[in-house]
């Protein structure tokens, strides 16, 4: 760079030709004091920090569903028939409630609610028009497995501990904490929904059945050995991979 400056006489023509249009302005600016006029700014960038506002009863446009919208939508989505015919992960009447999301493409306020029925092994999608306050569509299909609810994660952990396979988990809990395991107390499960691949052995039904793989941590964040097990929530069985 320093060399370029020294040789500026030779290079100057090419450099300056690129700035013809404003060369005039800089000539004039330079005519008086020959000091450069830097435009470097020293602003500190900030963003606004609005106070959190109470959640609205009803959202608009692209807003996420509000708590009260979800409550209303659930009541409408759970038709008497679904409530009577379906079963949740614990075997109680009524489907397992999984999730609710807004469908902004629908134009108004439409909620899509997902339920899993452990009796028919089907995923239900209930579409609720919140403005009209009614169920506008209902779909169901087998072999579709969205992420697990918290109740499903908990149930999976209970199944694992009750199974002889849970001995590994109990040992690793004792090694990590020096204490004996007391049910699911003090354990934090994270469930990945598991779908069997063509080569998988031991959990071939998973996909048609609703299965999860668990990551189990202690309350203070230490991970316990549980990853090699697949918990079949539909069959209420535990399988070991490989």
């Amino acid at each position, binding site marked *: 760079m320093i060399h370029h400056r020294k040789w500026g006489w030779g290079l*100057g023509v090419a450099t*300056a*030709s690129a*700035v*013809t249009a*404003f*060369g*005039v*302005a*800089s000539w*004039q*600016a*330079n005519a008086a004091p020959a000091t*450069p*006029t830097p*435009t*470097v*700014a020293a*602003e500190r*960038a900030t*963003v606004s*920090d*609005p*106070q*959190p*506002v*109470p*959640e609205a009863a009803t*959202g*608009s*446009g*692209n*807003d*996420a569903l509000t*708590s009260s919208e*979800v409550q209303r939508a659930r009541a409408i989505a759970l038709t008497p028939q679904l409530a009577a015919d379906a079963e949740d992960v614990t075997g109680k009447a009524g489907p397992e*409630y999984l*999730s*609710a*999301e807004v469908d902004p*493409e629908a134009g108004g306020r439409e909620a899509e609610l997902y339920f899993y029925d452990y009796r028919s092994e*089907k*995923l*239900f999608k209930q579409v609720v028009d919140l403005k009209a306050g009614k169920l506008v569509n209902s*779909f*169901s*299909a087998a072999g*579709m*497995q969205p*992420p697990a609810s918290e109740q499903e994660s908990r149930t999976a952990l209970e199944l694992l501990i009750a199974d002889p396979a849970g001995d590994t988990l109990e040992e690793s809990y004792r090694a990590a904490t020096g204490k004996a395991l007391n049910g699911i107390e003090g354990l934090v499960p*994270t469930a*990945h*929904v*598991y779908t069997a691949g063509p080569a998988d052995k031991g959990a071939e039904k998973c996909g048609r059945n609703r299965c999860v*793989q668990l*990551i189990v*941590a202690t309350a203070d964040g230490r*991970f316990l*050995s549980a*990853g090699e097990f697949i918990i079949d929530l539909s069959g209420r069985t535990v399988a070991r991979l490989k």
Partner: protein
Amino acid sequence: MTYRKIAGAAALLTAAALGLTVPSPARAAASATTCGSAATVKETLPNGTTWQLCWRIHDKAGLVLTQVYVSTKLQPEPVQVLDSIRLAQLHVPYDTGDVEYDDLTDIGMGGYSLESLDGDDCKGGSARQGSDGSAEPAQRKVLCVSAEPSGLAYRAREESWGENGPEPGTLYSRQGHDLVLRTISKLSWYEYVTEYRLHDDGQISARLGATGDLAPGFEADAARGWPVGSGDAYKAAMHYHNAFWRVDFNLDGKGGEKVQQYDTKLDGQGEMTAKVKTTRTDITTEGAFSKVDQRWWRLASRSSANADGHPRSYELVTGANDRYQGHPETKPDVTFSEKSLCEKWASGNDSDPECPPDIRTVVDFVKDKQTLTDPVMWVRVGFHHVPRDEDQSPMPMHWQGFDLVPRDFTAMNPLTPDGRTGQNGNPEPSAEPEPSGVQPSGSRG
């Protein structure tokens, strides 16, 4: 939760807050987004660029940005860039072949996986409260909004010629800034940062950061693992983080962009060196594409042009990208599909009872080669993670992502300083003499 208890006091605050954020009728164009004030981000960066958008949390996708508009000092009317952008999958296969996760569709980035901001998570920024997207939605501070310096945005020193040769003239030198939006999802040991950087020059950078801790107990041999901890006793398994994003442009609110691919190749010999040719290929039907050297894609508006009469467009710029060869859907770098409400997830898409069960991956999205009238862009960026000692602990953030760079979205650099606004087009339009040791003949006054 505490807001319920202080509802009375908060109601007063609400009115005040709304009064500040509701645009006046005269600025109606600026309120083109259709979401409530709590879901709106609208911030002006020091160089005069304003980004406005809506955000929400989806239980699977995590952070979703919709209706993204930009206005700049030279173009004060907000112009839409994106209809939406979000993650479309995070596929994590381990090199041992024992395990793979489709994190978005098997567990989800929102809901109970979404972390409330804490510690230094949003230092210097504003932690925004909103629904966490879970089945029983909770209002939590989950989105960090901040303005961060992005380094030198441009520099130009004008040179003039005096008695003794070149003399320094006006210096144009500006610091740039990004409006940064980020959320954090904790998927057991790994923690992922979903980040969008909206630059003051119109660029949008999407990236995923991974931190937290290596998966415990995922052991492998020397071909598939790297020793961490003392000696060679434990080799942590190598794995990929294959991230997909779904990008839906809506340039200037017109939609229906054209997809174009550009390739640059040698083209014979010129008088001094090789000639090089850049050619355009129009992508008119659905397809999956991969990068080769000097290939890039853009989405160009059919009906919106900048002030120079050039179609507004955005270019996809990808960088480091490891390709996982284990599945057909993780091979293409970018997939362009005709917009369909049944195409949501780059893999594990067979999760909606309203939709066909055999449309599982991006590869399925495009196999019928529909004509593209409303394209959606699926961008894949992979990272092969070879663990290292430094990954313990916590793991230093590693990033993967891509840029969307404006190409003719505005007629000039959106940050052009006042002294340069006349500098658009051929700098030597006529036979004006070049400045030299003498005063230019074009001098005014």
